[in-house]
C-alpha cells in the first residue's frame, strides 16, 4: 500500500507538469512523423531527371522510372538544378535526357543519356546501377520497336506501343528475388520502420529525463521525511521504481496506439510485444533511477540525460538500421540495451517472431534491467540511510 502511495505521488507530479507531457506525448509523435517521412532513404534511391522536350519517349521513360520499386524519381527543370541536388545529396544520381530525345529514339543511332553521379561515391554508384537497369529495360522496347517497324514497315509509334504491351506478356529471363531465411520480402519503410525504434528511443530518453524528479526529491528532503515515518527505505525505492515503470508503460502504450491507429503500424505477436515493452520499461526505470543517483542537479539531468540517451539510441540502431553501419560499430552498438530491443522488434515484426524467438534478446534486456536496477537501488539506499 505504501509503495503504491509513493508511486502515485511521483506519477501525479509528472502528470501535473505540462512541459513533461510535451516530452512524453508530443515530441515522440512529431519525431515519428518526421523520421518516418524520411527513413525511406535507406532502401530507396532518389533519382533526378531533367526531361528533354517532354515528348512521348520522355514520358514513357519517366513513367517507367517512377513506377520502378526502389526508385524515388524527382524531376528538375535544368541541368544546374540537378547538379545542385546531386551535390547536396538530395538525389543520389540524375539523368539528363537529350533535347531531341523523341527524334533520336525514332532514328537509327544510339541515344545518349547523360548520367550525373560521382562514380567514386558508392551510394551514387549504386543508384546509377539502378537507373541503368531501367534504361536498359526501356532500351529493349526501343530496340524491339525499331526492329519491328523496319521488318514490317509499320510506323514507329504504333510498334513502340505494341512493344510496350508485349514487354509484360512475352516471357523473358526473369529475376526472381527470394528472402534468405525470413518470410517478408522487404523491410517496411516510413512510419512502420520508425515507430518501434522511436518507442525504444523515447521510453529510455524520458526515463533519463525523469531522473530529475529523484534529484528534486533528494534536494527537497522528501526521502528523509518519508523515512521519518514507519517506512523502510526499500519501500521508498520500490515506489519510485514503480512510478518509472508505470510512466514508461503509459508512454509505450500511447506510442503503440498512435502507431497502429494513425500510421497502421503492426507490432507483431501481442504477447511477445507486451513482454518486450514490459522488459524495456524496466530497463528504462533502472537507467532513470541510476541517473537520479549519479547527477547532482536537475540541470545536469536535463542537459546530460538527453545527450546520453540520443547517443545510446544512435549506437543502438534507433535512428538508422545497424545493418548500414560497419561490423565494428555493430558490435559496439550491442553493448547498449537499445540494440537488443531494436533487434527484438525486428524479429517480432519482420520475421513473425514469437516470444521464444526473441528469448535471447529478452534475456539480455532482463540482464540489463536487473543490473541497472540493482546498481540504482544500492546507490539510492546508501543515500537514504
Amino acid at each position: 500500500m505504501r509503495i503504491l502511495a509513493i508511486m502515485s505521488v511521483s506519477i501525479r507530479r509528472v502528470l501535473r507538469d505540462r512541459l513533461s507531457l510535451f516530452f512524453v506525448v508530443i515530441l515522440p509523435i512529431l519525431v515519428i512523423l518526421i523520421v518516418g517521412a524520411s527513413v525511406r532513404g535507406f532502401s530507396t534511391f532518389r533519382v533526378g531527371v531533367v526531361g528533354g522536350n517532354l515528348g512521348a519517349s520522355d514520358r514513357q521513360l519517366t513513367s517507367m522510372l517512377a513506377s520502378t520499386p526502389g526508385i524515388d524519381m524527382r524531376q528538375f527543370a535544368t541541368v544546374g538544378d540537378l547538379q545542385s541536388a546531386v551535390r547536396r545529396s538530395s538525389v543520389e544520381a540524375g539523368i539528363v535526357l537529350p533535347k531531341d530525345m523523341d527524334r533520336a529514339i525514332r532514328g537509327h543511332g544510339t541515344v545518349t543519356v547523360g548520367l550525373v553521379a560521382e562514380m567514386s561515391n558508392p551510394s551514387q554508384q549504386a543508384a546509377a546501377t539502378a537507373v541503368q537497369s531501367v534504361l536498359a529495360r526501356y532500351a529493349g522496347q526501343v530496340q524491339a520497336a525499331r526492329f519491328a517497324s523496319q521488318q514490317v514497315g509499320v510506323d514507329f509509334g504504333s510498334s513502340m506501343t505494341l512493344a510496350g504491351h508485349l514487354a509484360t506478356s512475352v516471357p523473358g529471363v526473369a529475376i526472381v528475388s527470394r528472402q534468405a531465411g525470413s518470410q517478408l520480402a522487404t523491410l517496411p519503410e516510413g512510419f512502420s520502420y520508425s515507430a518501434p525504434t522511436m518507442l525504444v528511443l523515447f521510453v529510455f530518453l524520458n526515463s533519463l529525463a525523469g531522473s530529475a524528479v529523484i534529484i528534486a526529491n533528494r534536494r527537497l528532503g522528501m526521502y528523509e521525511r518519508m523515512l521519518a515515518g514507519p517506512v523502510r527505505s526499500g519501500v521508498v525505492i520500490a515506489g519510485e521504481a514503480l512510478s518509472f515503470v508505470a510512466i514508461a508503460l503509459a508512454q509505450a502504450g500511447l506510442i503503440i496506439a498512435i502507431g497502429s491507429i494513425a500510421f497502421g503500424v503492426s507490432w507483431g505477436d501481442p504477447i511477445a510485444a507486451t513482454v518486450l515493452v514490459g522488459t524495456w520499461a524496466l530497463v528504462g526505470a533502472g537507467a532513470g533511477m541510476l541517473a537520479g543517483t549519479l547527477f547532482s542537479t536537475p540541470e545536469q539531468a536535463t542537459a546530460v540525460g538527453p545527450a546520453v540517451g540520443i547517443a545510446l539510441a544512435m549506437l543502438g540502431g534507433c535512428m538508422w538500421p545497424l545493418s548500414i553501419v560497419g561490423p565494428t560499430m555493430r558490435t559496439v552498438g550491442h553493448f547498449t540495451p537499445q540494440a537488443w530491443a531494436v533487434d527484438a522488434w525486428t524479429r517480432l515484426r519482420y520475421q513473425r517472431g514469437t516470444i521464444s524467438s526473441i528469448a535471447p534478446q529478452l534475456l539480455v534486456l532482463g540482464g540489463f534491467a536487473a543490473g541497472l536496477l540493482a546498481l540504482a537501488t544500492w546507490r539510492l539506499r546508501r543515500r537514504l540511510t
Partner: protein
Amino acid sequence: MHPALAIAAKDVRQRLRDRSAIVLGIVAPLVIAALMSLAFRGAETIHLTVGVVNSDHGSAAAGLLSALRSPGLKDLVTVVPEQSEGSASAAVHAGHAGAAIIIPSGFTNSVSRSRPLPLTTLTNVNNTVAAQITSSIAQSFVAQVNADRLSVATASAAGEPTGSAAAALDKAHLSLPIQTVQRAFGAKRLKTISYYGPSMAIFFLLFTISFTARSFFVERDQGNIERMLAAPLRPRSVLFGKVLSAFVFGIVSLSIIAAVTTFAFGADWGNPLAAGLLSLAMVLAVTATTALVIGVAHTQRQAEGISSFAVFGLALLGGNFVFVSVTPPIMQRLALLTPNGWALRGYTDLATTGGGLAIVGLPIAAILIYTLVVATAASVLAPRALTP
C-alpha cells in the same frame, strides 16, 4: 566597462562553472557528430559481396559472371563462388554475403527457348541496398537477351512470321540503342561529418535558448533583476547583458566544434571567412530567439516550455535531427523557413562547391531577416518581463 558587458561576463563565468554547459555546448555535439560520422562511414563506402551459385557453366552464365566482374563494378562488388543454394542462403542469412545470384542448371540453353529459366537472387531483409544493387546488375545483364526476345515477338505481332523475324534478328546483331555517358558535375562530395558536424553544433547551440531564458527567470525570482534595476541601469542593458552571454557562449561553442571536427574528424566547413560569417549570423538568430522567449514567457516554467517548443521545433524542421536532403521535397522547403535550415544549406554548399562569400550570401541574408523580425518583436515585448 559597460554594464551589459559586466552582466554578460558574470553569466559566462557562471555557466562555465556549471559543467552541464560544457557538456551541452561542446562534449555532446562532438560525441554525437563523431558517432554519426562513424555510423555512416559504412554507408559511404558501400561494398558488397555477391555469392554466385553457377549450376549452368554455359556461355550465358559466363557472361553474367564477367558482367559482375567488369571494371565498372570493381569498387562496388566482389564475387564469391558458392557451391549450392543452401550454402549461398546461409551466407546471405549470416550477412557474410550481401546477396547471392543462383544461375540454374540449363540456363544457357533455356535462353533461346520459349520459356527461359529465371535467375534467382537471394537477399537479406536487413540489407535492402545489396538486394537492390544485385537485382539491378542482374536486370541490366538480362536486358539484351530480353530485348532480342521482345524484338522477335513485336515483329511477329506486327505481322512478320516468327521464323523469319528470328532469322533477321540473328543477322542484325542488334545492341541496346540507349547508352549513358558520365557528365561532369563539378563539385566535391558531401562527407557525412561535414553535414553532421555543423548540424549537431547548431542543434546544441539551440539549447542555449532554454538555458539562458531559464537562468533569466531564476534570477528574476531571486530578485536579482530587480536589484540590478535599482542601479542606474536601463532595462534594455540588463536584457542585452543576459542575451550577450548566450551570444558569447554560442560563438565559443561553434568555434571549438568547427576546429575539432575539422582537425580530428576531417570535416569540411569550407571557406573559413564565409563559414565564420554564416556561424555569426546563426548565433545572432539564436540570441534574438532567446530574447523573444524571455519577452513572451511570464514564469520560469513557461520559459522552459516555450523554449522546448522553439528548440525542438526548429531542430526538427531545420534538419538537425534527420539529414534534410533525404526528406521529401515539402520538408526541404519547410526547412528553409528556419534559420538553422538556411545555415545547414549554407554549410553544405560551402563544403561541396568550395566557394566563398558569394555562396553564403543568400543563406546569411535569410538568417538576418529572421533575426531582424525576431529581435524587433523581442525589443517590443521583452522590457515588460523586466519591469517589476
